[in-house]
């Protein structure tokens, strides 16, 4: 994690702030999961997990949970009052049919055209595994990414062209990094907001392609 910029929880909080009341949301594994803990007071989101539950909740503190009530990451979860269970075809009908409002995902790379790579590094010895990622990005109305701005080695994750295999082309709408909130606009990456203590040049330096200053000096 960079010394300056937003923490993981702050990134999740920033993303949560943008989600309208009443949205149906699917959260990916990792930082995206934290979004649920940061929804502003007075808003209710309904969480979908692709393995067949609408109205997912975190396990209450200290609860052990049940092996047959899990989320897509295979962690034990709970169900809210007013939840619904369904089978996989119905679950992906929700996804593919455009019924979910928002999907929050992690990323390996995002291109300035909104291409997303988040399922495979393409390493020849890796066992490929895709899960529901390609369905989610192809079907959900709005796709946002939460990710560190660069890899641990300092390589940019926001790039001109993804070098990793794509999850889908042209699907990402917005990116929340530790340094900035960035839209994928028709002209390319454009800043919407900068983390405290970070200026445009600092973010642009760590971005693998042109970054439009959408905020002004």
């Amino acid at each position, binding site marked *: 994690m960079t010394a300056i910029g937003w923490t993981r929880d702050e990134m999740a909080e920033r993303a949560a702030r943008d989600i309208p009341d009443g949205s*149906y949301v699917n959260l990916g594994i990792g930082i995206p999961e934290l979004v649920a803990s940061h929804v502003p007071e007075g808003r209710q989101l309904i969480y979908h997990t692709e393995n067949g539950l609408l109205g997912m909740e975190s396990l209450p503190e200290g609860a052990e949970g049940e092996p047959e009530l899990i989320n897509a990451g295979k962690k034990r979860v709970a169900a809210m009052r*007013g939840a*619904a269970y369904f089978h996989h075809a119905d679950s992906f009908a929700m996804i593919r049919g455009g019924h979910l409002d928002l999907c929050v995902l992690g990323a390996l790379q995002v291109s300035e055209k909104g291409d997303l790579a988040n399922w495979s590094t393409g390493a020849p010895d890796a066992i490929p595994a895709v899960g529901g990622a390609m369905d989610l990005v192809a079907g959900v109305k709005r796709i946002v990414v939460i990710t560190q701005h660069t890899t641990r080695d300092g390589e940019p994750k926001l790039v001109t062209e993804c070098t990793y295999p794509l999850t889908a082309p042209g699907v990402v709408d917005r990116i929340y990094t530790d340094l900035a909130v960035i839209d994928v606009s028709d002209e390319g990456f454009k800043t919407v907001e900068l983390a405290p203590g970070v200026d445009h040049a600092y973010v642009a330096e760590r971005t693998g392609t042109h970054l439009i200053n959408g905020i002004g000096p």
Partner: protein
Amino acid sequence: MIDKRVASPAEAVADIPDGATVMIGGFGEAGSPIELIHALIDQGARNLTVVNNNTGSGEVGLAALIKAERVSRMICSYPRTANSTVFPELYGAGKVELDLVPQGTLAERIRAGGAGIPGFYTPTSVGTPLAEGKEHRDFDGREYVFERGLVADFTLIKCRTADPYGNLLFNKTARNFSPLMAMAGEVTIVQADEVVTAGGIDPECVVTPGIFVDRVVEVANPQQESDLVRRGVSYP
């Protein structure tokens, strides 16, 4: 906090515009959302494309909507039923178009539309006049026709029980096309015999999850088409 309830059928259908495609649940009278249809007649939208298995009976509900000449095109599998005189008359007079679709193909097209599937192949209708002009394709030595998914601007359905999130339970064979149409409607409007509080429906038994539903209006003791027809009611 999420509460999809609206106060009346009139409010529920207020924004359906002229020219809209409207899916209406029901198989014959079972599951027909009479009160929503009557509200749509009152509302006045014209030039509608309506998707329903049939064309209504008597002069109430769907038949009344057709009689009021609000429907320019029907997509259905069986436009002839007992007490169905309105549609045959207007169809004969060239005042309404008919797109005849086999019942299972109609159901699957609606499900596909709601599930983001733009098209699929089916063996149904191969070798018949209903397959003429359609794309054919051989799979494993059998011939199939290509059919497109079907979506609607609005869906009107009836159910037995709803909750404020829009989770729905149906009543027996009144279920029929309604869960599919709920998926395929851009805006899905439900009249429910009863609305219970969140948690009042067992999550294991939900037939239509609330994500497919936009508006719920409680219509306790809904009218039954066969009663109205027997009593000779003509709406409005």
